[in-house]
């Protein structure tokens, strides 16, 4: 039985609307017009224990709304949702005891006191037994490298340090499910990698189910096998990342460096169908390979007859481009 079951969730928001200008502002004192924004339309998916699911979509697609519904903060207009056998908004308190949530753009730590004080408050809020708390704390301090910063007031931490502390805070009560809403937003490369590493570790060692939203596709590549793509409030793609690549990836770029070679190389000298030359200089050749049927060895052996190859690099189409294509295909 799946751990998270969401079916047919709808959510609409009312947004007050008025045109610019004083006249309109005065008018809106007496009469307000509202626009209805359909944030979620018939969203359904299931997640099994131990999965890491990347939840992606453009800004305003409904990612955060979904996270807020499954973490029991918002009540949907209709639809069903059971998480560990409970309906989040009906049994809020027993539901939230078993989940951990991180909102990348907000903070749960107390600003003016050391991190450990916030942790101890969480220990009491979740009624974590002393032993379990100590074990979890040790593990978190180790894996998140918190030793040097846990006694520092939160206001003095960098964003990356703070995010590590936030992650720690959401896992103190050993939840089975972790919702991460943009956990890597604004982080530098090193902190991003640390956060990803940690998510992987916690998933592997404690079998924690993870749903994460992000705009950084390298997060998804590093972590999630499965992606859910949402656009305009609907789930438009649910599946494997590699399948997606296979479907949308159209070309590779190969860059070859070689010892100085004076006569120009053109498509004819190369003579492999499907491979075209993007640019060529005396020491460097850039090739575009369309389709998946072409063997790299063919290209290399052909070229090595002509020049002395020094270095080769192969670049797949950036995943961001794939996603843009995907967004376009589903018109979102």
């Amino acid at each position, binding site marked *: 039985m799946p751990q998270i079951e969401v079916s047919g969730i709808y959510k609409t928001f009312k947004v007050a609307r008025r045109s610019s200008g004083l006249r309109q502002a005065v008018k809106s004192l007496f009469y307000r017009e509202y626009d209805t924004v359909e944030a979620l339309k018939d969203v359904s998916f299931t997640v099994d224990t131990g999965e890491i699911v990347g939840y992606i979509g453009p800004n305003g697609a409904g990612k955060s709304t979904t996270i807020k519904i499954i973490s029991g903060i*918002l009540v949907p207009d209709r639809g069903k949702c059971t998480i560990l056998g409970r309906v989040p908004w009906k049994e*809020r*308190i027993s539901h939230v005891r078993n989940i951990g949530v991180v909102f990348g753009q907000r903070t749960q730590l*107390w600003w003016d*006191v050391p991190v450990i004080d916030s942790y101890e408050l969480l220990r*009491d809020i979740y009624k974590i037994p002393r032993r379990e708390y100590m074990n979890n704390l040790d593990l978190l301090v180790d894996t998140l490298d918190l030793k040097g910063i846990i006694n520092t007031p939160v206001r003095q931490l960098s964003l990356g340090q703070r995010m590590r502390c936030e992650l720690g805070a959401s896992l103190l009560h050993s939840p089975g499910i972790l919702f991460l809403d943009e956990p890597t937003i604004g982080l530098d490369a090193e902190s991003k990698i640390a956060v990803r590493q940690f998510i992987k570790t916690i998933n592997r060692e404690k079998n924690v189910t993870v749903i994460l939203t992000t705009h950084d596709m390298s997060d998804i590549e590093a972590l999630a096998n499965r992606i859910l793509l949402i656009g305009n409030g609907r789930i438009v793609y649910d599946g494997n990342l590699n399948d997606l690549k296979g479907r949308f990836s159209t070309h590779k770029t190969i860059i070859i460096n070689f010892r100085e070679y004076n006569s120009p190389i053109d498509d004819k000298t190369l003579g492999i169908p499907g491979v075209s030359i993007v640019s060529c200089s005396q020491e460097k050749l850039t090739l575009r390979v369309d389709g998946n049927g072409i063997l790299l060895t063919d290209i290399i052996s052909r070229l090595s007859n002509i020049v002395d190859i020094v270095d080769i690099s192969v670049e797949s189409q950036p995943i961001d481009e794939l996603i843009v294509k995907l967004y376009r295909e589903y018109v979102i």
Partner: protein
Amino acid sequence: MKAYFSVFKLRLIYGLQYRAAALAGVATQFFWGIMHIMIYEAFYANAASAPPMSLKQVIIYIWLQQSFLVFVALWIRDNEIINLITSGNIAYELCRPCSIYGFWFAKLIAQRLSGAMLRCLPLLIAAFLIPEPYKMALPGSLAAFLLFTVSLFLGLMVLVSISMLIYISMFITILPVGSMVVFSSIGELFSGMIIPIPFMPSWLQKIAYFLPFRLAVDMPFRIYTGHIPVSQALQGVLIQLIWLGVLILTGYASMKKVQKRVIVQGG
């Protein structure tokens, strides 16, 4: 229950950090107190008929009011809770396994307690040391003192349960300014912060005695001065308990209701 106590403790530690603010507060309130006493002194010297309270009672009232200002002033707001609501950080508060009402109640009590702890002692010591007629005096009896302590704390809880209603109204209005201004100007007058209630015209007194605001300020302070005798004070404590029950139940129920319509925007 432990969770609420912990948040209370943490908020207390939090509040005790702000020493400079407390020091500034002590200085301001000391001079404010002296100024008020001077005004009453002039008023008493030229009074045509006998005033409802003795000058000494009024002086004690003023010093208590200044010392426990953080306890009893309705206009003191907890910016942290306001920020939670306006910034949307309340999202975190909503995914904790405890009731937000209890959580905030504990926070608010702790905030006022920490503020008063830092301010009241230096101010009271100063008030006891200055020369007559400005000098602060001891309570009439031990019973009066005990009842004063009990009613001061119950008053604090009444006040916090009223301000909880203000914070709850923020779920609907988002900005606290409106309900804050309405509540605090009405509350200020009817709690006896501006003048003690016995000085009011009798029709206004009737309204003041009917509303709960006076239970936090006027009542405990007049118990200390002995203006409210011990037997009446006991009755007052009972009224405090009843109001407290009503206010907490109302707050708790309305919190449940507004929680359903929470919309956390953005991000």
